[in-house]
């Protein structure tokens, strides 16, 4: 039960993009089309899940026993960067179609602050291993949801007559604001 709560809390109530402002760059940059937005979301969820597993292990088995917590930022970012590289090589080797679908998005994920944010929040909230993994999947699902909804709105927006100065980034930000308002309706649903 608690795990389900963590999942929905990360995915909907405390959505990474709309409540914590993490991963804004891909949220604005890759939300032009539904298909690519969904692929980006999937790739991010994938990396987030693995990041949750690996950073939890590193933090609790390596940094805490040797009292090296102050190295967490350096080690987390190194782990994430090499992890993304590794995942890219692995996917390329194992499944060509999957690589073609996710490939171009993978390098972008290294600098996606949602990934490092996930690792930091996980340490901050002091989750156990299972909870951490569920949190990672939930956060990824929330990111996918937000970016796909956004892409759907932007596809419709292409046909709308937006005032010229607001074309592009400004109108995207305003739509994101309205989305954030909508997601606020979920707040208080789960308090965890």
């Amino acid at each position: 039960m608690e795990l389900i709560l963590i999942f929905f809390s990360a995915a909907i109530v405390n959505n990474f993009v709309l409540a914590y402002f993490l991963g804004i760059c891909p949220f604005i940059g890759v939300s032009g089309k539904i298909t690519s937005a969904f692929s980006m979301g999937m790739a991010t969820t994938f990396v987030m899940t693995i990041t949750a597993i690996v950073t939890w292990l590193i933090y609790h088995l390596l940094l805490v026993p040797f009292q090296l917590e102050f190295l967490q930022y350096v080690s987390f970012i190194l782990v994430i960067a090499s992890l993304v590289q590794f995942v890219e090589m692995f996917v390329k080797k194992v499944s060509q179609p999957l690589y073609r679908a996710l490939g171009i998005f993978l390098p972008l994920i290294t600098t996606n602050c949602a990934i490092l944010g996930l690792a930091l929040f996980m340490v901050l909230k002091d989750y156990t291993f299972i909870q951490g993994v569920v949190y990672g999947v939930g956060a990824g699902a929330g990111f996918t949801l937000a970016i796909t909804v956004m892409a759907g709105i932007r596809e419709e927006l292409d046909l709308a007559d937006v005032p010229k100065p607001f074309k592009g980034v400004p109108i995207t930000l305003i739509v994101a604001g309205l989305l954030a308002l909508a997601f606020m309706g979920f707040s208080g649903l789960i308090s965890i």
Partner: protein
Amino acid sequence: MKKQLTLSKEYLKGLWDQNPVFKQALGLCPVLAVTVSAINGIAMALATTFVLTSASLIISSIRKLIPTQVRIAAYILIIATFVTIVDLVMKAQFPELSKALGPYIPLIVVNCLILGRQEAFSSKNTVGRSLLDSLGMGTGFLIALFVLGGLREIFGTGTLLGFQVMPDFYEPWLVMILPAGAFLTLGLLFGAANSYLQKKEQDEKNYLIEKYLKAKKEADEMGGQAKWN
């Protein structure tokens, strides 16, 4: 090769012409997240500027020693080191501010503004120029964060830097200090900046067209006279 800018321009370009937030839309995550109040915005901008400047100094001075293939990893490591320093100093000296900014201080590591400047500028330029460039970008970032944080604080709580600026009967707009307010305010500011620029561009265009028409008219008159006579 691109023409070298004068040293003062190297600094000033970050303030407006290449403002990291309004022109390049870089580093938006912290911009949106911490600007609940002006003071948070300033603290965040100063922390970012410190990391940006120190990283630029180190990277531009060892730019010839870093192999191209691993440069991104090397940059990130250098940046992460300075972020750790900032985080520890803030925790020790300004515990309240550090608590308010929370995980967004460590997230400076993945701020694309910092990595972007290293890749685009410090890795190709001398130490002095990189210093000016990063200070300029930092100041531009500070301006953007202060404007956004100030606006949100004024409308959201009726104060600026803790002092009351709105009259007593003013009812604060709660939405401004919620996440939605951040997106809406930044979107409107972005739009305003764009409309100002487009108007300026249009004015310049109009001026050129007018000048052209005038010149043409004069030429026509001269030519016409020549033809008629």
